[in-house]
């Protein structure tokens, strides 16, 4: 064994029952190093939540009870004196991320399933007409001050009229792949560009500062991820089961809910967790769509940077710590699914 290089020892395939001692040391020390790298910032945030201002500002102290006297002042500040605000933000975050995730996963996996199993072929020309009539509507609203309801109604009417009138002159069609790409590409857009239009949209229907507004927005923002992951997952499920179910007379909807979804538990769990994490942590959209009633936890984190009075590191750490807890619990519960579910389209071969 001595002549084997380090590379070879590291690339030792998994099924060999025992590892040479040298490999073991290398592997474990690398893993432990990474564990330390991952955990240290979290540990630091955790102990900072028990530090007083002086302990933070006058240089580093590392160990509670030995280096410094832990104090609960920041925890008290948030959970005794300001508990109403903290609790409000916490429940908002929970409600919003749960519902947004549920909505996103439901709608997204339905669409992903449809794209994986049903052939769609929208006409390219119709889409072009649709986009053009929408642009015309926006220009009308934005530049000429037409009422947006009127503009939308006219645009839709024009769209249907033009399809009927011109529909037979073009034949080019798009396929499922194009639809998939279009949906996924929505993820590319940076939130800062869309936040003002979305704000105006919710303002015009009076939904600002409500849970519903944020839930809908998060659901859509995360839809591409769900569609993408679940599309790959559905593709990997053997089609035979569904075909036999359909021969038995089951409808597509039934097939989907009774056969496909139970088979995709792992993929669903992993996707749910990912979307939930993204929704739980989002900041910019939440900031704009909420004023006070619907404020979420990340806004509370940002609010602890008190500008001229410095960053309230201790309070901020408390917020971060309480934000981590529920997600970690979720991750531990779902962890046996994550590994399987994060396969994406791996099983194609």
């Amino acid at each position: 064994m001595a002549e084997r290089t380090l590379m070879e020892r590291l690339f030792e395939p998994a099924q060999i029952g025992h590892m040479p001692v040298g490999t073991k040391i290398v592997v474990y020390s690398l893993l432990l190093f990474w564990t330390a790298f991952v955990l240290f910032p979290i540990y630091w945030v955790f102990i900072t939540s028990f530090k007083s201002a002086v302990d933070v500002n006058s240089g580093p102290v590392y160990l509670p009870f030995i280096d410094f006297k832990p104090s609960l002042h920041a925890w008290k500040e948030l959970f005794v004196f300001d508990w109403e605000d903290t609790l409000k933000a916490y429940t908002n975050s929970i409600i919003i991320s749960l519902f947004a995730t549920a909505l996103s996963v439901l709608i997204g996996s339905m669409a992903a399933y449809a794209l994986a199993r049903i052939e769609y072929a929208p006409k390219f020309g119709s889409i072009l007409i649709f986009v053009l009539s929408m642009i015309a509507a926006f220009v009308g609203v934005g530049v000429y001050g037409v009422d947006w309801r009127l503009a939308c109604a006219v645009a839709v009417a024009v769209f249907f009229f033009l399809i009927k009138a011109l529909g037979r002159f073009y034949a080019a069609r798009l396929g499922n792949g194009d639809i998939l790409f279009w949906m996924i590409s929505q993820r590319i857009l940076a939130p800062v560009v869309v936040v003002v239009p979305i704000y105006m949209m919710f303002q015009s229907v009076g939904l600002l500062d409500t849970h519903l507004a944020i839930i809908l927005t998060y659901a859509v923002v995360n839809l591409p991820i769900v569609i993408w992951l679940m599309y790959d997952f559905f593709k990997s499920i053997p089609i035979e089961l569904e075909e036999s179910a359909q021969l038995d007379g089951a409808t597509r909807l039934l097939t989907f809910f009774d056969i496909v979804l139970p088979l995709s538990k792992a993929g669903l769990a992993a996707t749910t967790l990912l979307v939930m994490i993204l929704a739980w942590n989002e900041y910019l959209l939440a900031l704009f769509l909420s004023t006070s009633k619907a404020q979420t936890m990340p806004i509370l984190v940002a609010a602890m940077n008190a500008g001229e009075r410095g960053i309230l590191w201790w309070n901020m750490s408390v917020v971060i710590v309480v934000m981590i807890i529920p997600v970690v619990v979720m991750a531990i519960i779902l962890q046996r699914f994550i590994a399987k579910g994060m396969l994406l389209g791996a099983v194609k071969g």
Partner: protein
Amino acid sequence: MSDNATSARAGISSPEASLTLRVRFSEWIDRHSRQLFITPAVVMILIFSIFPLVASLIIAFSRIRLRGGGYSVRFVGFDNFSKQIFGSEQFHFLGTFAPISALGWVFGLGVLGLVLFWLFKYATAKFTVLGFLGRVITASMAVGLAFMFAATLLSGKPFGTLGTTLFYVFVGCGIQFLIGLGLAFLCSQPIRGRNFFRVVFFIPMMITPIGVGYAFRMMADTTKGPFSPLWKWVGWGDFTWATDPWAARIFIVVADSWQWIPFIFIVLLAALENVPRDFVEAAQVDGASSREIFFDITWPQIVPVAATVMLIRVIEAFKIVDLPNIMTSGGPGIATESMSLHSLFAWRSLDLGQSSAVAYLLLFVTVVTCVSFFNLIVVGRMRANG
């Protein structure tokens, strides 16, 4: 089987009436299932993405001002874009240009040559109009970027937010992929505590990016952060991450990697564990070296997953904004400012036109990069693997 399930679910008492109703309902569903499945997603995306997309496109071509009772819009054509590319914001977006140095010429012309050769090869081998057009777009962006770097970085001047963003994307994602793959490989070994490592390694992803930003600001503080005694001991007490452009950029990549390696790690780990064992064992019986096993058997198996996960990661990396905003506010100078942050700053100062223009430029760069990546690498690989 399924019938029982539905009637149990519906829980209807009078079987006959419900049967016809149910049959009719399910027939209707069946007939419309094509639309039913996809319509909610399409409608939601149309409302929430297309409207803002078009609205901000209009904003990008205009000067918009918020005032009492709404806003005023004035069309200015390509002003917002030309300001970024040729005008007073050029240093900010592209970088400060200098006469191209010898090194710059070598690099720029080298890239140009390579790209032309590649195009020529494609045109002579298998030619489709659409494919060629796509490749021309990719190629011209590559050449443009090469000359941008040649005229800024390689000629001794700082580059702008475009360069910084590309640095975050390519260097950051590259590092994240390598480390993520390495960790996944280690964790796929028969070791004790795999579940422990798996959960621990996954944790950073669950922390809100704002929190990560602040946590790493504490880490990097050389006067009162946890590593300050170490810095002093090494003799770098006066060295600070935040004042040197490259150190600051690297520091942001470190924080970004800390947060996102878990994602790559967990996906690749799943892929590695899915590699059929009998393949590997058969190869071992045949006497293949472990390196051959990795590159000939394991690697091709995980490539599709790796490509997808990297594509997701690259898309998110182009949008990086919270970390530089919190850790350095884009400083020193504009060294750590990403395009998304550039857009955010413009937006905060109410310059919505510039903000949207930058965001659209970002959109363009991202789309070209991702589509090229997808078409040239992923699709190519898939074809190669059958």
